[in-house]
């Protein structure tokens, strides 16, 4: 039985608000998938808290994947998806999927949260070298 890997990240919601204000759609297009943007909307507008939680999830997953300093892992290669039951799941593509496969990592699980000025996420996967 392989070991467990865990990643965690904390994101100030204010930083996401600043990014939206300064870079707008360009920020959204570079960091989030269209599905993530749509699932972050509340009454039509993107919700900075939901975006911040999704960014935290991407970073938490990256910590599980443990890329080398020179290994490219575009943020959009890690997609946070809301399941019909309300929990979140993560999908990997491109370099993120390749990194997970190369290291023999099992399915990735994530959990997101946000409260006030902060958003957080944790990611867990079994397998891979400890």
């Amino acid at each position, binding site marked *: 039985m392989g070991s467990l890997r865990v990643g965690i990240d904390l994101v100030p919601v204010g930083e996401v608000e600043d990014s939206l204000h300064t870079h707008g759609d360009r*920020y959204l297009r*570079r960091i989030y998938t269209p599905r993530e943007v749509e699932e972050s909307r509340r009454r039509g507008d993107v919700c900075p808290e939901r975006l911040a939680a999704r*960014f935290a999830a991407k970073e938490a997953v990256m910590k599980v994947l443990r890329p080398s300093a020179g290994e490219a892992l575009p943020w959009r290669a890690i997609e946070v998806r809301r399941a019909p039951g309300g929990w979140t799941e993560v999908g990997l593509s491109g370099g993120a999927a390749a990194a997970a496969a190369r290291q023999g990592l099992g399915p990735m699980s994530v959990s997101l949260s946000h409260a006030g000025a902060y958003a957080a996420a944790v990611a867990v996967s079994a397998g891979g070298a400890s």
Partner: protein
Amino acid sequence: MTDVTERIRMLLRDHARLAVDPAGLDPHADLYQAGMTSHASVNLMLAVEDAFDVEFPDEMLTRSSFESIAAIEAAVTHLSTEEAA
């Protein structure tokens, strides 16, 4: 100190949320050790793209591309040279 280096220091001051004054940073100092968070690196990337009229392709979205002033300058120089070609 090149003009590019100075411009990068200003972008760090405005976007990287470092714990130290970027004016005094060694060009090879680790920016993450200096307090740059993962989300701050996003803002820095977008600001560098705006300032130098370049775009980082997916293959350059690595931790090492943004780990120091020198690394950012090298990336900008590479991208600017590619666009000019």
